[in-house]
């Protein structure tokens, strides 16, 4: 790595937010403000975390305790039988497996398309570049809408196939712009040298640019993977068969069934039976678990990924 790039990589590791300017003005009023401010922020933290803790507590509690409103932060009547019950359900595991497959395939396709297009857009000398950017950006402000999309997917014969959930959102324009701005900031001398040494545009992308872009690639993989892990509507819309449902649709049918909402929709969500609250809680915990486990480790990347696009030098 050239010193230049080492510096660039180092930038990503730097704290993203500068400490507030240290004042000479530590007036009594400002000290009071700081105490109030800290208290308010702790309040924000508590309110943000409470729903998670509540669901986790419910997942370990027995049904009766939830029904009588005794579960808040701590499990009542701690036991693991609901976990055993949910994990013994083949439909749950089937949904989980589907989610994994959709996430992996969709993320791979999305990464390939987004990377090559971002690379093309990052070449300032390219004729027609403004048009290529415009084509992508316009779709942020105007879109075909639900019905034409549904008709399109149906007539392409993609209903009840993997393609219906992995293709329609293959490029997120936001991710595209983040990558483009990252590529633009790579030193162009390296690429020029590679071209002089006889590498083609494909070679430059694969051998020079991608190895230097691991930080942004990791961020994008994470963005796409989380989005696909969390997605439900496409599957809900385009899948009629319960064995194709990702775990999010499985969960939504469970919640909708128990809330008494009309179980409309493409899915054969006929299970309008009351699902007990602790089973719902367990399913929610298990569904969100991978995201929660990964989150503390990748949070820094997520944030720097967004900032990469947000702040310009």
């Amino acid at each position, binding site marked *: 790595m050239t010193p230049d790039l080492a510096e660039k990589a180092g930038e990503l590791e730097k704290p*993203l*937010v500068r400490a507030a*300017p240290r004042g*000479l003005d530590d007036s009594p*009023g*400002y000290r009071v403000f700081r105490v109030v401010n800290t208290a308010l*922020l702790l309040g*924000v933290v508590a309110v*943000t*975390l*409470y*729903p998670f803790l*509540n669901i986790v507590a419910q997942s370990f509690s027995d049904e009766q305790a939830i029904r009588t*409103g005794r579960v808040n932060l701590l499990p009542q009547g701690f036991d693991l039988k609901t976990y055993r019950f949910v994990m013994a359900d083949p439909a749950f595991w089937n949904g989980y497996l589907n989610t994994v497959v959709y996430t992996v395939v969709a993320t791979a396709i999305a990464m390939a*398309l*987004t990377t090559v297009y971002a690379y*093309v857009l990052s*070449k*300032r*000398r*390219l*004729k027609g570049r*403004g048009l*290529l950017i415009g084509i*992508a*950006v316009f*779709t*942020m402000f*105007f879109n*075909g809408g*639900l*019905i*034409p999309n*549904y008709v*399109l997917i149906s007539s392409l014969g993609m209903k009840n196939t993997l393609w219906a959930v992995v*293709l329609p959102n293959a490029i997120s324009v*936001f991710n595209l*712009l983040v990558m483009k701005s990252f590529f633009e900031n790579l030193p162009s001398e390296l690429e020029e040298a590679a071209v002089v040494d006889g590498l083609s545009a*494909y070679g430059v992308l694969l051998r020079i640019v991608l190895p230097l872009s691991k930080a942004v690639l990791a961020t994008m993989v994470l963005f796409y993977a989380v989005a696909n*892990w*969390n997605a*439900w*509507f496409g599957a809900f*819309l385009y899948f009629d068969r319960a064995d194709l449902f990702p775990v*999010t649709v499985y*969960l939504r049918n469970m*919640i909708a069934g128990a809330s008494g909402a*009309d179980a*409309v929709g493409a899915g054969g969500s006929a299970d309008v039976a009351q699902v007990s*609250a602790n089973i*719902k809680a367990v399913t929610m915990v298990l*569904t969100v678990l991978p*995201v929660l486990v990964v989150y503390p480790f990748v*949070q820094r990347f997520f*944030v720097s990924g*967004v*900032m990469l696009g*947000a*702040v*310009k030098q």
Partner: protein
Amino acid sequence: MTAAPETALVAETVAEARPRRGKWPGRRPAGRRETWRRALRRDWQLYSLAVLPLLFFLVFRYLPMLGNVIAFRRFVPGGSVFGEAWVGLRYVEMFVKDPNFWSVFGNTVVLGALTLLFCFPLPIVLALMLNEVRSRYFKRFVQTVAYLPHFLSIVIVAGMVMQLVSVEGTVNQVTRLFGADAVPFIQAPDWFRTIYVSSEVWQTVGWGTILYLAALTTVDEQLYEAARIDGASRWRQTWHITLPGVRPTMVTLLILNTGTFMAVGFEKILLLQNPLTYPTGDVVSTYLYRVGLVSNNFSYAAAIGLFEALVGLVLILSANAISRRAVGTSLW
């Protein structure tokens, strides 16, 4: 997904895509404009990389836009994507005369306005509060927690909301504590807006601070020093230096939020609503979902959807124009 942190990037890229003719300084000296033939011969490999992504945009983004012609043609399931016969403005007339449509339109405007009212300013406030924190660890801790809800599936959020507001849920325990009767919130039309907006705030406010925090780091330190020497208090420093410093970010975000005004959280509303809460909780997008996909009235629903998208486009164009005149910041 909420569109919060797209701002600065979008603003800059939109500006970049603008044709650089006339008064815009071109990159190449005039008279030596490159011909397409030369560009293609030199960069054909780059253009070839763009083919698949362009195909994606064409098929999954632009084709559906054209597909909106079924709003003016009768669509027969199994028939052509573009419908079978012209019916003119029949479906447009239909929704103009549809009392349900106007009721859901009103709900959309109210929910959109409430969302804008709360979800736009709160991240600024939170970012300013975070900016005053001196302990780096405490700040990082608050940030880590605040960003978390952004990474949850809407399905999980809806599930959590329903548990919290259920008759025996935490919210009702608190109301009972104050001697009030338990409220079946999820069936109560009067409470739908409150529930929706507060869950939206819960989910988006932390993530929304990222951009403001980024913008805050670019404010010139010397300005604060100068202000301190002039004897400005913290409040005056915030008011006269910090806020003007993040104004471009605020304006860009406001324009983008205005553009998504009509498309209020479709997925979340669909998950949270039920027939009992339709009087306040049914919005244009959920109504067209039911009309189109549940009742199979594709052409009618497409007409509603087209109307919704056009209103959104007009909103963003006018917000942009107004902000360019008023504060000199705009997307393009």
